[in-house]
């Protein structure tokens, strides 16, 4: 079991999401930085599909009631297990009664905002519609369909394979600690189906201006602030399927990037779509980060995606070869 002493601002159970039900209006959800959660899972001997915690802005405290193993990925919130410092992207054995503590973010921090915690065996909440992710909006999945609160107790699954031995780490993958968010974050974007309907000036501004992530942003979508974008003609669109990464432009002209918990259909023009390989950057970016949108093509998107998959495969293979990774006696 894991017991939540302090949940922090927003901590929820997430896995890689709940695909397969969009036609019924059910969002895929899941960890916003799926690469970080996947890596954390691999580090503790899980498959990438195990459920972990997505912790927003640190300030989280968790007591373990059983021996296990943990890994933290994504951004670093000066984590400690009792009084011992825990580095991101390390796999660390945990003893029953130890307490994991993540510090809050500093007042003028430029660091990223999301940390992923994996434990050996995964968090064993019920699998609902193929996933253990919390759908915060619809109120189901995860732990009681909601963000975690003080006093919540989460079951830990029995691992197929227990990693023995002392702590070890992997070299930081590119989706690791993202560091300085005072500089604009580059995001590669494919033109959307309605891109050509925008005025020439708007199309230029999309690529040339900086776009700030406003505080009115959450797991459903990031609202951006920048110059107003305008279409040449203002006809309404019929409702259509949308997905994380789609950049919608509502009548205000201020774009919204849809995130994992976004609704399944929308009606605003889609000026562009962030490539899947860059979605992790948004997951980690704090509010008020400036984004620099960069045009890209399908070939570049594919290349970026393959690079990440190779990196995950490398980690998977390296861990499989560890001498102290052994099958758990059944």
């Amino acid at each position, binding site marked *: 079991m894991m017991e939540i002493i302090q949940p922090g601002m927003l901590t929820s159970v997430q896995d890689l999401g709940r*695909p*397969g*039900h*969009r*036609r*019924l*209006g*059910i969002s895929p959800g899941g960890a916003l930085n799926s690469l970080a959660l996947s890596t954390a899972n691999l580090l503790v001997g899980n498959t990438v599909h195990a459920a972990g915690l997505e912790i927003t802005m640190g300030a989280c405290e968790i007591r373990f009631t059983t021996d296990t193993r943990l890994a933290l990925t994504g951004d670093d919130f000066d984590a400690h297990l009792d009084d011992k410092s825990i580095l991101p992207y390390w796999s660390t054995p945990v003893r029953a009664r130890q307490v994991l503590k993540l510090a809050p973010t500093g007042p003028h921090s430029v660091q990223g905002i999301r940390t992923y915690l994996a434990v050996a065996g995964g968090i064993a909440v019920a699998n*609902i*519609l193929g996933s253990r992710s919390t*759908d915060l*909006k*619809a*109120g*189901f*999945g995860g732990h009681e369909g909601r963000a975690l609160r003080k006093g919540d107790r989460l079951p830990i699954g029995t691992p197929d394979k227990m990693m023995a031995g002392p702590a070890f780490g992997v070299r930081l993958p590119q989706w690791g600690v993202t560091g300085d968010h005072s500089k604009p974050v580059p995001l590669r974007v*494919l033109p*959307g*189906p309605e891109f050509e309907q925008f005025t020439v000036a708007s199309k230029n501004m999309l690529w040339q201006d900086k776009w700030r992530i406003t505080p009115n942003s959450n797991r459903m979508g990031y609202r951006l602030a920048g110059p107003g974008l305008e279409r040449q003609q203002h006809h309404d669109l*019929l*409702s*259509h*399927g*949308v*997905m994380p*990464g*789609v950049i919608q432009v509502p009548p205000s002209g201020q774009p919204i990037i849809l995130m994992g918990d976004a*609704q*399944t*259909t929308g009606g605003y023009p*889609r000026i562009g*779509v*962030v*490539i*899947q*390989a860059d979605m992790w950057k948004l997951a980690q970016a704090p509010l008020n980060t400036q984004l620099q949108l960069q045009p890209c093509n*399908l*070939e570049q*998107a*594919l290349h970026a*995606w393959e690079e990440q998959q190779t990196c995950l495969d490398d980690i998977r293979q390296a861990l499989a070869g560890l001498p102290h990774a052994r099958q758990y006696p059944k």
Partner: protein
Amino acid sequence: MEWERALGIWAEDEMTQPQLHYLGDSALLCSLSAPATLPQQQRIWSIAEQAANWPEVSEAVPGMNNLTLILRRPVVEMDTVSRRVLDIWAHIDTDHIAGREIDIPVVYGGADGPDLDVVARHTGLSSTEIIQRHSSGEYIVYFVGFMPGFAYMGGLDPALATPRRDEPRLSIPAGSIGIGGEQTGIYSLASPGGWQLLGRTSLSLFDPACTPPTLLRPGDRVRFTVERTAK
């Protein structure tokens, strides 16, 4: 011959050919030209049903007069999937799309239908007539979206069309039935919303523990029945 077949499709019925556009690196959007018609929408449901079984496709999401195919992996199979969509579009069999018939009992008016008077004022019809007209229509679920189990339905009597509220309510109970412009719909979950509320059903529209988890699916035909009229 492959090229003959390809040409044949284009010549046969240009209107039914979708325009294809990639939506990011892992989805393909297939949209049809206006106006949206029931036969076009039936074609979309049929293709969605088939495409969901293709190995490259993870999900097929019908919209209004369009279909979005979410691919399992970015980019790799975009061309394959595009060709297959164009191949089957004109030939797909839509006869089996009859849709299920679903009756939804409604308590009209009272605390569950606080906007019956607003609709009466706007349309110039009496409450009784609004209820009579609303419950005598047959509605077709064009697609499901916005929230789990929320059905976008066609078939509202145009005389009942009423604009949404200026100020959306902060919370509307699940099962509430309302009118928003020219559409009618049922809130499948408690949520904020701006539709004019006529009544409420006690049926559950979304239950994640059920298979399938939603009461309504694309293609279903819906009737509202008067359970009673509240004061």
